[in-house]
């Protein structure tokens, strides 16, 4: 399978094209975040800020309650991730180990739930949450996020459970360990890395989520980071570019770090779920 020199050069050129395409918007965001107002207003923008400044960050924090928004996002995402994993793991276990009508229906729901437009779910949810006085509350948002994160969490977890050989559990049973004992001391430790990856993935999706947060959270004190970010863009679509870039850059950092850590596991989990089911 040797590639000709010409082919090699072509491959490197293509790869270079991809690198530019993937990187340049992000580099521009970072660059804009550190530019002075004069430089942002100049008719010939530069890649590297001539006079790098932190003023945009300061201004961003002054203009919008970014810290509180980040706190809200953190609470919603942590709550959603923890609950989702806690309730998904047992179901995923049953789905992976037993084939019944129920588990088939659950698998069907996982697939189908990817297809319906959120607006069909959010209107009734909005009405129900309003009845329960859970509009403009983070608990309401967490409830929605849990259910919204469940399909994918189940998908990943089923894959991880399947990767744990059932023979190990049977061996433990033969040795006289009860069901619970087997689960706790044999299966759980092997499953732990997968559970952590699933939780982190649920965390990121909730941290990044916008639509539900936009509809359910009304006041700036309750809003999450993505919603507050859009407040930097004024009613006429006019934005103060520097602070906007600064805030956007900050909002991305947590997910980038978490994602870099778990990216391999996610792909593995996605594929395990997809290939074996």
């Amino acid at each position: 399978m040797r590639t000709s020199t010409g082919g090699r050069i072509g491959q490197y050129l293509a790869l270079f094209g991809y690198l530019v395409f993937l990187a340049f918007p992000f580099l521009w965001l970072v660059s804009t975040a550190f530019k002075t107002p004069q430089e942002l207003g100049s008719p010939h923008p530069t890649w590297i800020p001539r006079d790098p400044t932190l003023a945009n960050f300061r201004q961003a924090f002054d203009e919008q309650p970014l810290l509180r928004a980040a706190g809200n996002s953190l609470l919603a995402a942590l709550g959603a991730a923890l609950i989702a994993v806690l309730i998904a793991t047992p179901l995923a276990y049953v789905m992976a180990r037993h084939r019944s009508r129920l588990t088939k229906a659950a698998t069907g729901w996982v697939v189908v739930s990817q297809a319906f437009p959120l607006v069909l779910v959010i209107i009734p949810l909005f009405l129900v949450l309003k009845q329960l006085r859970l509009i403009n509350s983070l608990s309401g948002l967490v409830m929605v996020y849990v259910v919204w994160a469940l399909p994918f969490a189940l998908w990943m977890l089923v894959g991880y459970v399947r990767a744990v050989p059932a023979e190990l559990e049977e061996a433990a049973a033969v040795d006289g360990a009860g069901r619970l004992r087997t689960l706790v001391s044999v299966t759980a430790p092997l499953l732990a890395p997968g559970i952590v990856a699933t939780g982190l993935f649920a965390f990121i999706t909730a941290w990044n989520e916008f639509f539900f947060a936009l509809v359910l959270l009304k006041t700036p004190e309750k809003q999450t980071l993505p919603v507050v970010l859009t407040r930097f863009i004024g009613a006429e679509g006019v934005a103060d570019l520097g602070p906007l870039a600064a805030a956007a850059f900050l909002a991305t950092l947590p997910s980038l770090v978490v994602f870099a850590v778990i990216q391999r596991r996610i792909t593995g989990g996605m594929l395990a779920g997809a290939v074996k089911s």
Partner: protein
Amino acid sequence: MTLVTATKRSARGTARADGGRRRPPDRGAWFLVLPALIPILVLSVGPLLYGILLAFTDAQSGRTEPTEWIGGLNFRDLLHDTLYWESFRIGLVWAVGVTVPQFLLALGLALLLNQDLRLRWLARALAIIPWAMPEVVVGVMWRLVYSPDAGVLNETLRDLGLGDGRDWLSGLGTALPAVIVVGVWAGMPQTAVALLAGLQNTPRELHEAAAMDGAGAWRRFRTVTWPALRPVALAITALNFIWNFNAFALVYVLTSGGPGGRTRLPMLFAYEEAFRYGQFGYAAAMGCVMVAVISVLLALFLVGRLRGGDDA
């Protein structure tokens, strides 16, 4: 249709699981299943069915008189709502316009990442950025790129002597292509990584054997790589199409559906109808139409592709 079947099945499954014939699940299993099943039924399946019901009512926000059942009236109005069908058409153009280049670019990237190239690690690392970013930030970021005076795109075009810059997101003709580019950028890496995983499942020996037989790169792709990759590729394309058609945040941040509705995707339309004008029933009807059309399109697509595969 699929929705109804799935829920029916789940209901029957619930009734039967106790006396399941094949492999009686022990009582412990119930204890494991309920914690997830209750929230799913209450907060996902329930609202979905309720949403379909709402489509047949005149539900509105902030109205005092009770909601009434009005049968197919919403759907009849929707049929004559030219603005909605225009947004539907835009939604299809957007979904196809994003999904197809997304797949082709992703396939190229996956094939490259599967080779022994030096900068592979960098591409892998960079591919994380669009995937991990909040959609709102992706939108914000590209607004900065497209910005008429302070944006990198216009500056680059000026440097290359290609025109004197435009307001890409506000131009009637440029807005939709401009948001489509962003859509492709945002979803391409995820598709590439999934395809790459699929590629790595193809046995290397097959490639080597084909190469020994004198098959060129294109023939190896057609006879070895693609047949193995096809199921993954089909599933991803179908999912991408649905996700793209149902997209919201990206375009909301980039253009809010403007200029003059040129980028108003169906989800944006339904969102405005529901939460700006309070027309819950009407918006729910829009959601139903979206589900129906997507199901039909997907069924046609999958049937067509699967049949095409039998001949190949």
